């Protein structure tokens, strides 16, 4: 299993990639607690789409992992995995564990 911290570093790389494209009020801080989307979140829905795409791309570039993050599983959860950087990292960790075991 990949360390949670590695995944968070990858998400920070996605934040670095995305920030220059975002309007100033949406720019993300590199912290596990950063709220991405939903109440108190910084991104609008389009910003979230761009963030997910950047995260998928960084996962591929930095760890050679090919995941579609916004699949039906993610979308049907009661607690959205896209709420904060930490919840997303946790979700990615789960998905990787699943694919390693399955």
């Amino acid at each position, binding site marked *: 299993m990949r360390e949670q911290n590695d995944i968070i570093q990858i998400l920070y790389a996605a934040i670095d990639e995305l920030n220059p494209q975002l309007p100033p009020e949406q720019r993300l801080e590199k912290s596990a607690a950063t709220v991405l989307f939903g109440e108190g979140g910084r991104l609008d829905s389009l910003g979230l789409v761009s963030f997910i795409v950047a995260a*998928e*791309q960084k996962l591929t570039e930095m760890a050679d992992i090919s995941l579609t993050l916004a699949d039906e599983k993610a979308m049907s959860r009661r607690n959205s995995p896209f709420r904060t950087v930490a919840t997303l990292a946790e979700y990615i960790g789960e998905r990787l564990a699943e694919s390693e075991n399955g």
Partner: protein
Amino acid sequence: MARDRTILITGTRKGIGRYLVDHYRRQGFTVFGCSRGPMESPPEGYRHFQVDVADEAGVRRMLRTISADHGRLDVLVNNAGIASMNHILLTPVSTVHRILDTNVVGTVLLCREAAKLMQRRRCGRIVNFATVATPLKLEGEAIYAASKAAVVSLTEVLARELAPLGITVNAVGPTPVKTDLIRSVPAEKMEALLDRQAIRRFGEFRDISNVIDFFIRPESDFVTGQVLYLGGV
């Protein structure tokens, strides 16, 4: 003007797609293309991928390679397409799946993966392939016409979803063009079809590239969600 610009064309082994490769090479584009089979004597400045457009993993690999090698994609032309002439009562469900896979699923996958790459520069052009068989409601082509109706619908909705990312999505709707696609259509059926066009002749490759040229030029950044049928259909 097209220096450094990159274009990905699907279905390039033969027919319209093969012509488009040479057309956009001449304009100075770096051209990428794919089809299920290999391309015979590919021109310089062209890179071929042997990928089925309906294969998600293959499509993702192709776009990843383009991204790694070139870092950008300016234009996607979703030309790959198949047809089958058959009365509905004689149409096997395997044919239905095959047509929907290439024409609909393929177009969706390519639009999705290409838009991921295009949105990084907040700029891109997607051109899909419709057909006059849809508005003319051609008998014997129910599945083909329906698959292309889905492409029209995708074009219109994606135009809205991708507009904030700087990507336009349009479609060209060719009339019959002499390629393998229509080889098995009987001559009298073809004549009857041409008679329903405002301008009664076969389409030429250049009729199609002319429309694509218009959709992808920089000045067309306010043109999206449009389907342009040729021949006055």
